[in-house]
């Protein structure tokens, strides 16, 4: 093994990191800024048809009659289809996984048959020559409905008074209980017990590019090409293959540019499956692009939890135990194929995660309701677990009269304690809570801020400081989905090819969603091979050309895909040196590659430009020894297996000012210290953190999908659903501790979800800290002015 093949985190490898750790610009940024992105809706295919969906206006209703006569006469209409029509081409699915014991959900069709279970569920599909013509026809469809009782409230659902799916017996999709034992005893001997009920609003990820799919069935080959705004092309290839009965290898999924996803685009959507089925049925390309109103009504929602949590501590400030009861509602179906049980499961796995208590008990109920479905959205379960934990920790600190930072310091797991098994059963390889806490307090000038806070309170200015320590699931192993029977790859692969001119082409199964994945793959490839960054081209998002892999989700792109690129790059470098040794008739060990050239390992003297190496290998192999074969295309795969998840840790802080007359919260500043292992591109990592923090702030202050008691979505548009906007966002200071994972050579952990995980808890604690002198607290997100005014008894 040459020096360059040592793990990046091994001692003495600092100088061989190349582009790793450098803030280089993303190669695709300029193309996107010049308007040359290639999104699904940019495609123009001959004979392209457009589909729109008639969506249920009721939250729960039986379809008594569907009449298409008038709409079929509209200009441009190609066909109008019911759920039954489409079911001839697309089989239904059930969103359950074996490792979530007892999870249940009814079969779900691409277009509902007989009954709609939420407002917005598609019950008919209109295909026309243009989208406008399809919408014209949509307005003339006649439906007779028989309204059914709706179940909107989580507690009502749990009671089972009205059961949404009679055949399932009750409304409980999934339940779990976890108990280390000894919890009641810990509470009995505690000096201090605190309790709180927290509520989390249902919200959604709002992608700049809405969900989009163009399916092109080729009857001659019985093959299907799907241009899809998705995070997981291979998962979708498998699903299209199974449900449309087309051989897997005859399905090609292409995800070119994707305009944001945040977890929204990693699920199976009925209208997208229907679009693919319609392409098969009509033997022509069919496109569906969700409009903004459809996005709000049908893109997965997330969160909506009500959790009671208790904490037991000693007078000396030692946390003894956590005890929680989580109730969460997921809409009428568990979403396929990842299920809607994962978020609640994560709350059970992660609550209390940063701390060293040994007793833990958790209860979870996941119930059905007649709202849109919920599923995994950026930071799945973490924002809930972090806010619960940190909210109750602050309450305990207040009761003990202890500074919140000091209370955390006494309870965070020691940096030397790893590997460590948390009472929920999850295992941590190596975390750095204390280093992160110290760095955070230093960055934010914690003591000065506390003094300023006291001074301002005398002037009736209510400022608050909130801390939120966190752990985060990244780089998941097959334990996340594969073990439960989901055909979702935990493994990713990268193929690297040296081109004759000395350039390197990278093909990787992890996809680009706009977050810069291709940029970091170029950095890793260039560093591993020894070429300059401008010599690298990256191809992602095509099942026909990239290795098989999972795609983008669960903060896994850099840690898993990046490792595959690194290993592939190192293998290519070794193969290139074999050729160089043959050409130069030198020992391979004397050679290395640097700056686009083969060099002498010790003197760094240039021996052979890579374009010369490529020329000989491809065009004049006759000049090489008879038994020598050049291998300039290599593929390597990587699956993390030593730990179920490669946990990261970090801590955030929020500084706010609450206007106690209006209930408005002004965000003054935010800090995020994160340990995501090896940082590949500091600029991209910081922007991931900032973007994540902003989405977390959205959950804390702005975003909520509001439903009427009858099940009507009340704010499904960009004017009424409040996404956080730039003017209200504070400066977000990022800092890093780097503890590389030793499971890989690259040492990178994930970072895409960390900001979202911690921000809601930090903001909540800051608001409650600001309100503390008035002896009131808020515990239901989002913290609207009205909720704060109500807490203050002003309205």
């Amino acid at each position, binding site marked *: 093994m040459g020096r360059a093949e040592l793990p990046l985190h091994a001692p003495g490898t600092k100088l061989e990191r190349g582009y790793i750790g450098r803030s280089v610009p993303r190669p695709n940024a300029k193309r996107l800024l010049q308007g040359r992105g290639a999104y699904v809706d940019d495609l123009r295919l001959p004979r392209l048809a457009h589909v729109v969906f008639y969506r249920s206006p009721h939250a729960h209703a039986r379809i008594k009659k569907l009449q298409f006569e008038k709409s079929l006469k509209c200009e441009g209409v190609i066909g109008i289809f019911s759920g039954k029509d489409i079911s001839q081409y697309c089989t239904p699915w059930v969103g359950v996984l074996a490792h979530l014991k007892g999870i249940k959900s009814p079969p779900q069709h691409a277009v509902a048959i007989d009954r709609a279970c939420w407002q917005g569920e598609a019950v008919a599909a209109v295909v026309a020559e243009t989208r406008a013509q399809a919408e014209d026809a949509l307005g003339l469809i006649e439906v007779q409905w028989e309204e059914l009782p709706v179940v909107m409230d989580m507690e009502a659902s749990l009671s089972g008074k009205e059961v949404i799916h009679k055949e399932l017996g009750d409304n409980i999709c999934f339940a779990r209980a976890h108990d280390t034992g000894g919890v009641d005893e810990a509470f009995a001997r505690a000096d201090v017990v605190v309790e709180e009920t927290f509520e989390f609003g249902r919200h959604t990820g709002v992608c700049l590019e809405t969900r989009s799919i163009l399916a092109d069935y080729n009857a001659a080959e019985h093959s299907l090409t799907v241009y899809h705004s998705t995070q997981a092309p291979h998962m979708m290839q498998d699903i299209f293959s199974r449900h449309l009965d087309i051989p897997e290898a005859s399905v090609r999924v292409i995800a070119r540019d994707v305009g944001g996803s945040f977890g929204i685009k990693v699920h199976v959507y009925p209208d997208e499956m229907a679009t693919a089925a319609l392409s098969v049925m009509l033997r022509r390309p069919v496109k569906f692009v969700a409009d903004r109103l459809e996005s709000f009504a049908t893109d997965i929602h997330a969160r909506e939890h009500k959790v009671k949590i208790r904490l037991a501590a000693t007078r000396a400030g030692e946390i003894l135990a956590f005890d929680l009861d989580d109730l969460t509602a997921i809409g009428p179906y568990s979403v396929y194929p990842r299920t809607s049980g994962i978020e609640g499961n994560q709350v059970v796995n992660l609550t209390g995660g940063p701390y060293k208590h040994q007793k833990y008990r958790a209860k979870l109920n996941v119930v059905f309701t007649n709202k849109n479905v919920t599923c995994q959205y950026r930071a799945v379960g973490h924002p809930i677990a972090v806010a619960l934990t940190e909210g109750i920790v602050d309450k305990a600190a207040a009761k003990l009269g202890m500074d919140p930072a000091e209370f955390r310091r006494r309870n965070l797991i020691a940096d030397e304690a790893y590997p460590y098994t948390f009472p929920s059963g999850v295992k941590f390889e190596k975390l750095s809570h204390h280093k992160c806490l110290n760095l955070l307090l230093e960055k934010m000038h914690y003591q000065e801020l506390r003094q300023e806070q006291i001074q301002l309170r005398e002037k009736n200015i209510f400022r608050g400081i909130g801390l939120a320590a966190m752990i985060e699931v990244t780089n998941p192993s097959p334990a996340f989905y594969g073990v439960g029977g989901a055909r979702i790859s935990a493994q990713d692969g990268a193929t690297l090819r040296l081109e004759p001119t000395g350039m390197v082409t990278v093909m990787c199964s992890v996809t680009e969603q706009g977050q810069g994945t291709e940029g970091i793959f170029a950095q890793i490839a260039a560093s591993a091979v020894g070429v300059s960054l401008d010599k690298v081209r990256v191809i992602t998002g095509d099942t026909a050309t990239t290795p098989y892999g999972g795609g983008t989700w669960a903060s896994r792109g850099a840690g898993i895909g990046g490792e595959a690129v690194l290993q592939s790059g190192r293998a290519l470098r070794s193969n290139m040196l074999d050729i160089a040794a043959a050409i130069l008739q030198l020992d391979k060990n004397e050679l290395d590659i640097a700056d686009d050239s083969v060099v002498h390992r010790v003197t760094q003297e240039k021996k052979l430009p890579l374009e010369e190496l490529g020329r000989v290998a491809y065009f004049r192999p006759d000049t090489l020894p008879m038994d020598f074969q050049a291998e300039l295309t290599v593929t390597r795969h990587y699956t993390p297996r030593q730990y179920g998840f490669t946990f990261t840790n970090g801590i955030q802080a929020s500084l706010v000012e609450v206007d106690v007359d209006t209930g408005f919260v002004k965000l003054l500043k935010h800090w995020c210290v994160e340990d995501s292992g090896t940082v590949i591109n500091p600029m991209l990592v910081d922007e991931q953190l900032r973007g994540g923090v902003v989405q977390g702030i959205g959950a804390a202050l702005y975003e909520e999908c509001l439903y009427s008691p009858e099940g009507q979505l009340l704010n499904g548009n960009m004017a009424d659903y409040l996404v956080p906007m730039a003017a209200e966002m504070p400066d977000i200071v990022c800092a890093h501790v780097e503890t590389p994972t030793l499971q890989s050579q690259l040492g990178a952990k994930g970072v895409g979800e960390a900001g979202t995980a911690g921000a809601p808890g930090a903001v909540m604690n800051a608001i409650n800290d600001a309100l503390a002198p008035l002896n009131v607290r808020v515990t239901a997100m989002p913290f*609207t002015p009205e909720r704060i005014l109500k807490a203050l008894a002003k*309205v």
Partner: protein
Amino acid sequence: MKAAAFAYLKPASLPEAFAALVNPHAKVLAGGQSLIPALNMRLSSPELLVDITGLPDLAGISLQAHSIKIGALTTHAQIEACELVRKHVPLLAQAVRHVAHAAIRNRGTIGGSLALADPAAEYPACAVALDSVLVIRNKATERRVKAERFFKGLFETDLKQGELLVAVEFPLAKAGDKSVFLELTRRHGDYAIVGLAAHNERMVFLGLDSKPVLLQKKTLRQTKDQLPRNPPADLYHSSATKRHLAGVLLERAWNTP
């Protein structure tokens, strides 16, 4: 979200526009910042759109003997940038910064905003507070209406079939006048939860009723007592919260030097 089919006309003169507006299913298109989304969401499907942006004489800001006259097609951005407005109509200059976002201010017009009469919009309240005059024409005549009488109800104005709002005249501010514009939005650029356009004795609230609410200035408490008992709730704010917030704004305006 594709608009239903409609006919489109861009008249080059006022007579041509008035001829087209005889059609009861015609709608006037100016900046399009409210109308186009409504068309795309199929909340409105007119037969004909009469695009008035090509009409001469409907844009521009001019200093008159006793007023600043602003043509109906003047955009928010033009008002925002105008020195005359800043000097002579300071209330409007304060308010325009709260109108939506830069991209919308570049296209949206004062005439469109006044004629639409959204109860949460800034200009109607300013127009009433400043006791301004709206200039309205039909094919034959011109009439002038005080702002207080122009706004009738929710999206309802004194404009009649076949009429166009062509300009609005704001009286010139005098030395010693006090103008305060305040509004509460959760995000900059949103429609206000509640807002207050105050000019001397005239305190006009937006977002508290179906049209601007003019209070008579007395003592602070007496003025506050005039606030509507049950302002309409919105998605995020109950009636009680809106009334409370209106009271907060009133006090803040009162205490503004």
